[in-house]
């Protein structure tokens, strides 16, 4: 049985009205913001299930866009996120869509175009109480929640990379809580998802980036 922190019971601290349709939506946008390193020129949200049916009344659209702007779930600027995105020249649209069977009713696909016209896509769901799960990045199926300080490391699928990454974490005295490796096809683009018990620092990120065949390093942590 799951244990709960008191801040899951008296909490989360959030912008209303709904933990699943507002706070969770903001967190999904926030993860996409982190994965794009804040570089978003245009974003399209494909809203599935309950998200598609009720998003206007719950401010799900403002919360998703607020997350893309880098706001966390208790940031009062979420209410004004349309105006703030317009002022930045960030283009956004919301489309009601059927994203497939067996998906959580509060699922969204976030398609991002960066300033260099590079595209990226993130699939995730708001699973209740403001908690989320990310289930796909750029076509690679994976799973993390953002509850922990999470390292997301896209890399080429070659031998020895996992060992080098974990050695660096050990050198920085970072304890790994959970770790998984995902890949699209053998030898093709792969992802390491490492959930840790510690705050993650820049220096460590630079060390990991220095490893051959590591293409990028992202840190996602949601308060």
């Amino acid at each position, binding site marked *: 049985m*799951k244990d709960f922190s008191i801040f899951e019971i*008296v*909490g989360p601290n*959030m912008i*209303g*009205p709904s*933990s699943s349709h507002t706070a969770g939506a903001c967190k999904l946008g926030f993860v996409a913001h982190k994965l794009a390193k804040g570089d978003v020129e245009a974003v399209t949200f494909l809203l599935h299930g309950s998200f598609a049916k009720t998003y206007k*009344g*719950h401010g799900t659209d403002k919360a998703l866009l607020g997350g893309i702007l880098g706001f966390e779930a208790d940031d009062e600027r979420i209410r004004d996120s349309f105006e703030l995105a317009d002022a930045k020249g960030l283009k956004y649209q919301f489309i009601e869509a059927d994203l497939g069977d067996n998906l959580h009713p509060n699922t969204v696909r976030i398609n991002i175009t960066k300033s260099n016209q590079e595209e990226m896509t993130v699939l995730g769901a708001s699973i*209740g109480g403001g908690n989320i799960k990310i289930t796909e990045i750029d076509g690679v199926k994976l799973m993390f929640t953002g509850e922990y300080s999470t390292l997301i490391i896209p890399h080429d699928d070659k031998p020895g990379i996992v060992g080098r990454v974990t050695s660096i974490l050990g050198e920085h005295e970072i304890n790994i809580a959970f770790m998984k490796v995902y890949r699209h096809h053998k030898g093709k683009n792969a992802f390491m998802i490492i959930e840790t018990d510690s705050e993650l620092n820049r220096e460590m990120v630079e060390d990991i980036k220095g490893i051959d065949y590591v293409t990028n390093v992202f840190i996602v942590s949601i308060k």
Partner: protein
Amino acid sequence: MTFTNGQELITLCKEKNLKIYEVMIQKEMELTGLSEAEIKNKLKISLDIMKQAVERGLTEDIKSVSGLIGGDAKKITERNDKTRSVCGSLMSKAISRSMAVLEVNAAMGRIVAAPTAGSSGIVPGTLLTIAEEFSLDDERLVEGLLTASGVGFIISRNATVAGAEGGCQAETGSAAAMAAAAIVEMMGGTPEAALHGAAACLKNVLGLVCDPIAGLVEAPCEKRNAIGAANALISAEMALAGVESIIPFDEVVDAMYRVGRTLPFELRESAIGGLAGTPTGQRIKKEILGE
């Protein structure tokens, strides 16, 4: 320092001669590795957000995103300021503050879900009123939030606090149970009395359905937060006077869960049955969300 239900919590409290809030702080320290001071500082932030939400709801002109609710908390405060309240000034303040938080939530303002956003008015509305009326400081309020989290933890672990799973009884019933237990301990009551108060709250609203108009966290949620605040105060009063729950707290939690699972889908946050399904509820839904 861990427990899974009310009985185990009471046993722990008795063995170690602790209040529920003291058990909760130790449990949180073990779970997170944070110190007592760090946990209490985080709770003070939550408390400040609660205070700000009450203040906003009682002083600003609030309108929800849909336009359906707003301004009712202020009306009750104004009446209590001008004339003698039919339910007494303390109760009037508690209900207006609970409603104030719900209005701020519906207007995309900042709140603390306690345990959910839809029931977020009850804990701050009652605890802040009791603290004001009995001159209790923020340290006592933080202890109250810890006691409340103990009751919310037991219900979350063994039943549910989600309206979609258990109806409104699981949301505003649980929030009232948390608030009642907190008030009992803040006023010097025993852990057993706190759980008798919590049990009474759940029993008082057993079977209450979740039927939000247009699926929004607005109506009847706001008024159900007012009755939730009254429920918490009434139950705390009974418990502090020594009135006991004939059915033990854990069995009440279990009954609440089983009643919730028996509620038809239409009455669990689906915006189909109950008030949402009335002609007026349906008309409002069309006006707000379109066809």
